[in-house]
């Protein structure tokens, strides 16, 4: 039986470290500005009207929504770095000795890491929503759609945090983790619909990209923001994909905490 109170107390601890990463935050915000104000605008001008039409009227809006998902992903994985710092300070042993179950611990950390990432990204998310809505004033935004999309994005960030915890627990060197994450980052973003829709990818890439959690999250966010387009993944499939992703990595995180950490191989 999972105690929601315990899950929240664990999550709260990670939320409190929000300001530990202020330098990273500033860098990410600058990166976001460069992507939107430079790359997004320039590429938007390069694309033919039929391509713009296919992605819902404006590639800039399509791209801006995708960049937010990419940001959410890259900030949710921070929790993995926390695990290494905690291992250096022996805090992992402390966390494992507390009167909370492994399920509550992993779930709490995934939620804490995910919420923290949402807090980082929310100002930029607001900017993107403003840009999308101001460039498509006729588009209809359903509050329910937006709410569902946000809820799914929460789950997406929890899942990414769980994924990062799973990786950190499996890879014992922080250097290897950093390199591996860099490689995964390059692949997972490019093999998704964050930057371009599936229809423009070669079929062998699209075959993989359609199962990418970033594809589910990006297309769902676009749908929630009112960017209607036939190229987006169906919302029901995207929601199912995100729930599966979250469940898989939460389960793996719990399993590894019990097997790898308690087994003592961390030491």
């Amino acid at each position: 039986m999972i105690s929601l109170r315990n899950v929240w107390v664990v999550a709260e601890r990670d939320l409190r470290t929000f300001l530990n990463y202020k330098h990273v935050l500033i860098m990410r915000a600058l990166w976001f500005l460069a992507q939107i104000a430079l790359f997004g605008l320039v590429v938007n001008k390069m694309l033919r009207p039929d391509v713009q039409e296919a992605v819902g009227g404006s590639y800039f809006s399509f791209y801006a929504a995708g960049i937010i998902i990419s940001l959410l992903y890259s900030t949710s994985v921070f929790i993995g770095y926390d695990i290494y710092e905690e291992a250096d300070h022996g805090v992992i042993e402390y966390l494992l000795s507390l009167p909370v179950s492994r399920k509550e611990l992993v779930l709490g950390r995934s939620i804490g890491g995910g919420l923290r990432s949402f807090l980082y990204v929310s100002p930029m998310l607001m900017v993107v929503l403003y840009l999308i809505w101001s460039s498509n004033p006729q588009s209809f935004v359903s509050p329910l759609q937006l709410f569902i999309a946000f809820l799914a994005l929460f789950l997406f960030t929890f899942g990414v945090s769980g994924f990062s915890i799973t990786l950190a627990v499996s890879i014992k060197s922080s250097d290897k983790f950093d390199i591996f994450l860099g490689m995964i980052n390059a692949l997972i973003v490019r093999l998704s619909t964050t930057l371009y829709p599936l229809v423009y990818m070669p079929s062998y890439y699209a075959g993989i990209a359609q199962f990418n959690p970033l594809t589910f999250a990006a297309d769902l966010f676009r749908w929630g923001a009112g960017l209607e387009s036939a190229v987006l993944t169906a919302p029901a499939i995207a929601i199912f994909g995100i729930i599966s992703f979250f469940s898989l990595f939460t389960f793996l995180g719990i399993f590894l905490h019990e097997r790898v950490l308690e087994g003592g191989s961390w030491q």
Partner: protein
Amino acid sequence: MPKPIIRIVNLTKKFGNLTAVDHLNLEIEEGEILGLLGPNGAGKTTTLLMLTTVLRPTEGTAFVGPYDVTQEPDKARTLVGMAFQDPKVLWVSTPWDILNWHAKVCGIPSNEREKRLRWVLEEVGLWNERRKSVHTFSGGMRKRIEVAKILVQRPKIAIIDEPTTQIDIVGKHRIWNMIRSLRDEGSTILLATNELYEADVLSDRVAIIHRGKLLVCDNPKKLKDSIPGGDVIEVVLGKDVSKKCLEEVERMNRVVDVLSTKPNHLKIYLNKAEEVLPQITEFFLKMRIPIKSVQMSEPTLDDVFAHYTGLTIEEAEKR
């Protein structure tokens, strides 16, 4: 007869080829302070980590209260609180945040939390530093935060790993008093230490552990008495002693050996010196030999350790 609150059964932990804990069997009674004494690397911390379910045993198990740590680890942890050997704090945190979160995760209600935090922070002398980042703290101050966690939690079973390393003598006494008061409030204390004096003054019983194995477990007094001739009485007499007198002393009950370092200096090796001393003084008075001085020394736990291993704790640590 107090019932055991911790029952360790054939507990074993291997890291590759290294056996850190080797078929350990031990019972800890409710309400006692049990000192787990041994040199560094004896397997004390590994044992404690298995009891708190941080590490899973390779073989055997332990029961914490009614819960088997291998079968019901989540329930076992609800009874246990641990103060680690190395302070487990992140450099970005403050004492208040660390203890407040610890209290919260241990389920202490908010109305009680603030009072308890204030009391503990004052007791460990960190109240004025409560909002400072711990990266500015000395090793001793960080250690005090670690001990404070357990004082805030007041668990049914408090597991404390070397609580006073890096702490000055005033601080040591303060922490020892807190550990005693924790026990008086109802906690059972399992204290791992390699400090002989600490084990001696704090523990109701001492379990001596070496190379992962339990050598002996009893109260400190009985452990010291278990060494044949462990007590020493040194007597300086007013005149030289005859061979006959020496033989008379040697024949006394509990006397193991008598050494005459000078004709009027005797070194008597015996057990339970406090019971035999009156007999010895009476004997010399009867023999009309004046006694100039008497010095009595008890064996230390180091002598006990040496008796069972052939090494002092210091030597064992070097090996």
